[in-house]
């Protein structure tokens, strides 16, 4: 592990202050704005967790809804018998386990297979859960009654987001993070310098999936009533992809830049014109491909580099401390 430099310590302090300031929000409002804030923090957490894996590997994962639903269902099933903290841990382990299985089956192969597999994963888990519930239990829905209100969920999500950022930061500075950058550049070279590329990818996918599972678990009390179609809603997967790509996946904080405007716009559109959300998603995907392939952050970086003097920005230098 490399010791953090002065610049990083400063950034860390600033980030901590920022988190503290945001954590005060429920003191001022616990209506519409808090609800919107929960949505935003949820998507920031989801998109950042998604980017942990998909950013460096360029594999487009659509498994978010599956992990999220596994988390939600863990809480739904266990809330009567177990403390909430234990359920978060179980959600983490379960979704990490599913991520390991999916990763082992598909990550050795080309990216297309992975996309296709994850595309149907949420639907697959949903079918299995529905089938088990209708055939072996009394009913389809599950009630989740807890003491938690919107602001508790907000604080838990915010805390988890901080953990995700810290994890991402630690990974970037570790051998695993360096290995991922090499894999992203040239997988053949990566294997020939001794990197077990499949293991590195599966490991990262597990970390990403486990976080998403915890997010789903935290959100369960908000739903109060859990049904397979709402817990395994495939739209979540797509929204996470589009927001993360809009923001840009080259930086850990890139998705944040995409989430905030998109969540607000999407909320507004689905309230005013509920039939137009698909079109909005479609246009957003096309915009990412044709207009801003590196996301908003990538676009801003390129712009800044241009303004600074014509030449392309030199490759980012990792801070190695001797």
């Amino acid at each position: 592990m490399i010791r953090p430099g002065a610049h990083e310590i400063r950034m860390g302090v600033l980030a901590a202050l920022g988190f503290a300031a945001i954590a005060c929000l429920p003191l001022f409002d616990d209506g519409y704005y808090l609800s919107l804030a929960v949505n935003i923090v949820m998507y920031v957490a989801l998109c950042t967790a998604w980017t942990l894996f998909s950013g460096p590997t360029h594999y487009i994962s659509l498994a978010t809804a599956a992990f999220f639903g596994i988390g939600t269902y863990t809480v739904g099933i266990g809330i009567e018998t177990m403390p909430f903290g234990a359920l978060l841990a179980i959600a983490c382990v379960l979704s990490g386990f599913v991520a390991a299985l999916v990763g082992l089956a598909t990550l050795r192969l080309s990216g297309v297979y992975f996309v296709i597999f994850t595309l149907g994963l949420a639907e697959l888990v949903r079918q299995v859960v529905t089938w088990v519930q209708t055939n072996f239990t009394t009913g389809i829905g599950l009630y989740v009654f807890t003491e938690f209100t919107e602001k508790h969920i907000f604080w838990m999500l915010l805390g988890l987001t901080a953990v995700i950022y810290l994890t991402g930061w630690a990974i970037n500075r570790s051998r695993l993070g360096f290995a991922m950058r090499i894999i992203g550049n040239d997988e053949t070279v990566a294997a020939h310098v001794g990197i077990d590329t499949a293991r590195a990818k599966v490991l990262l996918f597990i970390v990403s999936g486990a976080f998403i599972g915890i997010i789903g678990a935290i959100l369960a009390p908000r739903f109060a009533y859990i049904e397979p179609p709402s817990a395994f809603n495939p739209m979540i997967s797509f929204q996470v992809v589009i927001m993360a790509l809009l923001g840009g996946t080259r930086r850990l904080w890139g998705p944040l830049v995409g989430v905030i405007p998109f969540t607000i716009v999407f909320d507004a559109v689905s309230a005013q014109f509920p039939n137009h959300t698909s079109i909005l998603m479609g246009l957003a995907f096309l915009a990412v491909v044709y207009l801003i392939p590196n996301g908003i952050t990538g676009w801003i970086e390129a712009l800044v580099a241009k303004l600074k003097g014509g030449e392309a920005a030199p490759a980012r230098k990792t801070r190695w401390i001797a």
Partner: protein
Amino acid sequence: MEILVTGVLLSGTYALIALGLTLQYGVARIMNLATGETLVAACFGAFWFFSALHINPVASLFLVAPIAFVVNWFIYALLLRPLVNRAKNRGMLEVDSILATFGLMFLFQGLMLLGFGGEYFSYSFLAEPFDIFGSPFGLNRVVAFVAAVVIAIALYVFLTHTRYGTAIRAVAVDPVSAGLVAINVARASAFAFALGGALTAAAGGLLSTFYTFNASMGVVFTMKALIIVIMGGVGDVRGAVLAALILGVAETTVASLIDPGLTLAATYFLFIVTLLFRPQGIYGKKQA
């Protein structure tokens, strides 16, 4: 036996969708994730021709398929060729085309939702029993199957016995070498993409005669088509047909013996087995 026949009848339509996709991915190198939306659009097309203009759905294939051909040609020329041109390698093109076709998927789905709403549609065409091995089957299913077989055979003959078909197969094997022997790769790719769209649309027209459809069901068929293509081996016509048969029968078996809610689980089981044991597909060659 009844299950087997139902499965085989269903697989005819599946095979057509998969053939369309395998042409688009195998030749034009575009993994078209909006293929299900093409199918659904064709369902609505056939429905409209039948209910508004009283045109027989089998006859309207001759309208639906050419329209799909033209539309897909434009999609390829305007939206996808720029991606092919800017991609530095296969991986970049794959990511770009996946994202772009996701965009198209949502866009088409949104437009169809606006036009037709989220309700289920169906119409009655040849809804009379037809006996096979002593059991009655919907005549519309039988007609759809026969039409699918005819179209598939026509495609096979075109690809293997005509000059242009051979050129398309050459592009599928190696676009660079195909260019070197004076094949217009860009045109062949556009043609293959458009032809793939037309096949998928034909499948949609046939499907609408016996299937209840709605604007947002496309992605389910995209999944099925993708799995068939991968099972059969990308770009392989025989493989796609065989895989479609396996999938159709497996689905019907699971639906009638265990639970209709588990058809996707059955599909996925086949998919996982393929990925674990034969990722190159039934007829595919092992990658070096």
